[in-house]
């Protein structure tokens, strides 16, 4: 559950990346495609080369949506309702791709990973946190890390609500 302190920290983080939001979005997606190649299966129509306009454009959308979630952190269900419908019914993205904390996708290096089923949405969250850590360095303190992880889990949960 997000405490008042968590919400404050998340808003501060957002303030710190506001000047490079677009870049952060593109980088998050690039890292996700590089680290978890299975996520590329949702973008067969995209040019996935480094610096592609489509990645920049989509990254910008993703970060804007997260920013909207930050502004409406007390009512994530409503704020993300449209996106939840979109991802569940139209895009049908495996929610493991949104995961914060614990997701690692299905590795092709060993078929018998024995992991619990992960959600694709969760992989995006891990990459977003890596981008924040790269940009904020020491300012990505354990307390900030914890708040962002909780926030991304909450966002992923809302996006996955309509799946079934």
């Amino acid at each position, binding site marked *: 559950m997000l405490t008042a302190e968590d919400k404050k920290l998340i808003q501060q983080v957002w303030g710190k990346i506001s000047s490079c939001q677009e870049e952060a979005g593109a*980088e998050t997606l*690039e*890292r996700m495609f*590089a*680290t*978890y190649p299975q996520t590329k299966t949702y973008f067969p129509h995209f040019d996935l080369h480094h610096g592609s306009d489509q990645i920049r454009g989509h990254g910008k959308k993703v970060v804007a949506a997260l920013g909207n979630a930050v502004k409406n952190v007390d009512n994530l269900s409503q704020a993300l309702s449209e996106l939840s419908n979109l991802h569940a019914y139209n895009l049908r993205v495996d929610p493991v791709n949104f995961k914060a*904390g*614990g*997701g*690692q996708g299905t*590795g092709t*290096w*060993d078929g018998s*990973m*024995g*992991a*619990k089923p992960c959600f694709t949405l969760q992989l995006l969250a*891990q*990459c977003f*946190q*890596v*981008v924040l*850590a*790269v*940009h*904020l*360095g*020491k300012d*990505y303190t*354990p*307390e900030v*890390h*914890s708040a962002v*992880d909780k926030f991304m889990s909450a966002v992923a949960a809302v996006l996955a609500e309509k799946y079934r």
Partner: protein
Amino acid sequence: MVHWSAEEKQLINSVWGKVNVEECGAEALARLLIVYPWTQRFFSNFGNLSSPTAIVGNPKVRAHGKKVLTSFGEAIKNLDNIKATYSKLSELHCDKLHVDPENFRLLGDILVIVLAAHFGRDFTPACQFAWQKLVGVVAHALARKYH
């Protein structure tokens, strides 16, 4: 057996060469206990874990973090046989410590974030790929002897 490309090995080793094992290990373990507080259940004899500040400053957390990351170093020296490297530790974590293997994946993801915070842009997407693969392989090896 896990296949590592020459590039992956190079990326892993070049990052590892610059890692302060004591600092990074301490930080990764502290963050595990802070971000996923239920993991504190495995460290009830570590003393004061009552707040992020207490956890970060706790000498037992620091020492254990160093131990954990030092063991990662063994995996890196033996990338072609990580399963054997972790065989005994896997038995230990199952039979004596009773740690749910999901926690190994959580620690792995945290370690990647710690490295990203330390190395900034030098922790490129290609680095992240190699390291997420490594932490995944380590987590799997640690879970392998569970029964």
